[in-house]
């Protein structure tokens, strides 16, 4: 072998090939558009199908799956570097030009080359359907996120119910992963995961219910529009804290990562997964992380409202930008909490979830009803 081929080398070569071919297509197509009228019609039809205002673009590229997958991948890199800086060390360093920024992509490529094994007595159909379920849950939550006033993927009258219905699938996926693996440690992890999620979902629902009462509709876009003057986190701080804590429990992040507690039950319900099955589960987890942080921003932090610092024609981009910024800030705060806390124990967690959080959630509900009855909050009823 004459030279050592490294990953940056591969990227350079493949990007040259891709760039040249794209340039070629654009030049040929552009030349044809201005000469042959049939091709010009074709261009209009094409733009309508996959152009920037079409459903395909919104679902697949931005703010849909590709954007979310990109954020999920780079949040993994950011989390590793951030936690490393808090622990006085360097994180990934050598993959990519700037401080290991291509490390998650290198990890995915490594995972693709591994072998997919499953335990011999496991139920293969259910075992291999769990990664699909996990990615599907993350992706369907993305569909209702209101990134801006007019330009979003889907708007319906009952978006809040859609969110909670999809979140209800998460314990099912945990249980299926643990049961189908047919082994001791995943089983214990799946049972712990079920206990934890069921205990915290009720408080999440009641905290979200108080937001719905104050804003008067189940539509996420209306909820954001109701916060045009004051954010709900100022009116109902207790509700925001309760929703935040239950968010951590639904995502199984530290301090609530009991279902995959590494020093006791190796990896919990995901122990027996390898190669891209594992990769899909992790991707689904991080997309869910992004989507639920987006829901928190919508409900409590005022959605897309923010001072306009772009010139007058670019309102939509301004709104998208503020939404993304607030979501990323919520994610950074969750990452800080990971670096600072140990893990909860099961009985303390259940005691916390069923008694203290539930009381706080109901207290918040009464405060919301009180504010509504006194007429202090001006927006009642949806549009």
């Amino acid at each position, binding site marked *: 072998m004459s030279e050592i081929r490294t990953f940056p080398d591969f990227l350079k070569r493949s990007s040259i090939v891709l760039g040249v071919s794209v340039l070629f297509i654009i030049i040929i197509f552009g030349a044809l558009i201005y000469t042959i009228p049939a091709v010009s019609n074709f261009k209009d039809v094409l733009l309508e199908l996959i152009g920037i205002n079409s459903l395909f673009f919104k679902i697949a590229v931005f703010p849909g799956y590709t954007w979310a997958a990109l954020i999920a991948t780079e949040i993994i890199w950011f989390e590793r570097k951030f936690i490393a800086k*808090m*622990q*006085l*060390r360097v994180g990934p*360093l050598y993959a990519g030009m700037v401080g290991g920024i291509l490390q998650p992509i290198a990890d995915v490529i490594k995972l693709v080359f591994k072998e997919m094994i499953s335990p011999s007595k496991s139920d293969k159909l259910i075992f291999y359907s769990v990664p699909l379920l996990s990615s599907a849950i993350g992706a369907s939550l993305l569909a209702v996120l209101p990134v801006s006033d007019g330009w979003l993927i889907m708007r319906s009258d009952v978006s809040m119910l859609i969110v909670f219905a999809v979140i209800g699938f998460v314990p099912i996926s945990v249980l299926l992963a643990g049961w189908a693996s047919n082994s001791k440690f995943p089983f214990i992890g799946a049972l712990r995961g079920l206990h934890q999620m069921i205990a915290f979902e009720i408080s999440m629902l009641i905290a979200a219910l108080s937001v719905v009462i104050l804003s008067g509709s189940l539509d996420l876009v209306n909820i954001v529009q109701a916060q045009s003057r004051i954010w709900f986190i100022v009116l109902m701080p207790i509700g925001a804290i309760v929703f935040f804590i239950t968010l951590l429990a639904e995502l199984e992040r530290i301090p609530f990562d009991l279902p995959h507690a590494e020093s006791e039950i190796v990896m919990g319900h995901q122990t027996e997964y390898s190669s891209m099955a594992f990769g899909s589960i992790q991707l689904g987890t991080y997309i869910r992380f992004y989507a639920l942080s987006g829901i928190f921003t919508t409900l409590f932090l005022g959605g897309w409202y923010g001072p306009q610092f772009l010139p007058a024609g670019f309102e939509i981009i301004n709104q998208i930008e503020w939404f993304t910024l607030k979501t990323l800030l919520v994610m950074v705060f969750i990452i*800080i909490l990971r670096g*600072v*806390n140990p893990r909860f124990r099961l009985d303390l967690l259940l005691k916390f979830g069923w008694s203290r959080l539930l009381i706080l959630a109901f207290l918040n509900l009464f405060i919301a009803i009180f504010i509504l009855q006194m007429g202090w909050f001006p927006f009642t009823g949806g549009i």
Partner: protein
Amino acid sequence: MNYVFKLFSAIISGIKHLFMRRLTFRYPNQKLKFHGDGYQYDPKEGVGISGYRGRHILYLEKCTGCSLCFMMCKGISQAIQMIDLPNIQVPVNKKSSFPQIDYAKCVYCGFCVDACPFKALFETNEYEMVSYDRESLLFTPEQLAIKPKYKGTYEIKYGKRGAYHG
């Protein structure tokens, strides 16, 4: 309420560390500096001279072949064996027997240096003994006589924003 204050102070402590300097140092590009020239022993006084205990250095012209280092290492890790090298003629060494050290077994305790009464065996700063096979870790007396070139310049320094390697 007490819980909230304590949790908050834990979070503030974590955030404070985002602005401190890292302690990691990047190994192949940055190497540690050791004080002194390696562990040596003065047989007249009977005390050692402080230094890092790494690879040994054998001064062929002083070694008499008394094999005291071999006898000391026999009870510790059997890393030293005496071999005959007839092509090296040293006036004080009648039988031309010199020690060879197997670094796959050596524990770097330095008692062989303490045992030598002729100041012929010292230890140096070099510790990077890696190889692809076991046989090349057996250093013959000629290999031990070459002085290693180890140069390290980084050490722990205490600054205003924490400790770092500089």
